[in-house]
């Protein structure tokens, strides 16, 4: 059973990777098919076209998740990607043929916290990008409604950044009932 599974992944997964390597030779920073899932790291300029290609040509129609990682305390990652603090991560899934996943990672530097929104491609990206904006402060350009989604509207800062204190900056103790979201 296990052997069968391995054969499938070896055959189908690198196919996606080969196509991406061929089409985005200059844009790919890293790629890997060593784990169960395929992942590619792509530069910000080409990320939208690569995601569009994955969706329209390779039938990755399901956007599972959009999130980010704050690598500010992970020196090895920082060095590898020109000290870009954040890594925006897209998880894609296809139902066509042999179902498979692809992970697309895009380094975003703190100096230019902008990346093109993929809401045009997947409607599901709307709330996912809002969450990423809320938690990490990444600005998704072209998003129709980029507001906070989890934290209160008057919240300051982005709590999933590594420099945000776990116990907050006093917002637990100094709440205000006038500024209601209810």
């Amino acid at each position, binding site marked *: 059973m296990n052997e069968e599974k391995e054969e499938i992944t070896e055959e189908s997964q690198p196919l996606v990777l080969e196509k991406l390597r061929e089409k985005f030779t200059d844009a790919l920073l890293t790629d890997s098919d060593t784990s169960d899932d395929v992942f590619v790291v792509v530069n910000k300029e080409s990320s939208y076209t690569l995601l569009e290609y994955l969706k329209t040509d390779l039938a990755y129609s399901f956007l599972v998740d959009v999130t980010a990682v704050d690598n500010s305390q992970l020196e090895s990652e920082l060095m590898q990607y020109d000290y870009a603090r954040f890594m925006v991560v897209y998880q894609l899934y296809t139902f066509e043929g042999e179902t498979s996943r692809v992970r697309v990672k895009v380094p975003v530097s703190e100096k230019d916290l902008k990346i093109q929104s993929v809401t045009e491609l997947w409607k599901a990206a709307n709330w996912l990008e809002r969450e990423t904006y809320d938690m990490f402060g990444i600005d998704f350009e072209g998003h129709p409604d980029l507001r906070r989604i*989890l*934290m*209160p509207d008057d*919240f300051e800062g982005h*709590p999933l950044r590594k420099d*945000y*204190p*776990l*116990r*907050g*900056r006093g*917002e*637990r103790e100094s*709440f205000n*009932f006038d500024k*209601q*979201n*209810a």
Partner: protein
Amino acid sequence: MGLANTNIESGSSTERTDGNIITTTIDKVVNWGRKNSLWPMPFGTACCAIEMMATLASKYDLSRFGSEAIRFSPRQSDLLIVSGRISIKMMPVLKRIYDQMPEPKWVISMGACASCGGVFDTYTLIQGVDQFLPVDVYIPGCPPRPEDLIDAVMQVQRQIHKGELPKGSEVAYNE
């Protein structure tokens, strides 16, 4: 038997009782009624709410204590059971629900999260609902067992029976 007519006519209720007339005060009668028909407003946001449901279901059966009439409208209830963690964003909602409940009203803070934040010592959680609600009874536990919730309801009943004011009205009068 029945009420002795002559006593009522004469305006005296204690001369002859026949064992069927009880002399008391309005407050005591009203409180007796209140304590045996508490209408809880459940505010369940986490796993404590599951225990609350178990308490209301057939096995533990809160209706044995007269509190089975769960109302999801705060305007029809007089006992707020906060069961679960309350985030800063949820707080105004809970506060508004409490404000909508008619007086007199009691509050049970069920479980560690509602009472003190529990294990969630983070930027997003209120470290105890008593920071903005007058809590009458706290229940420890993570989550508390249904017996603990029954005990808390009975404690509220005892407070009502003794004629104690709910925490909320004390706060209101002091202000």
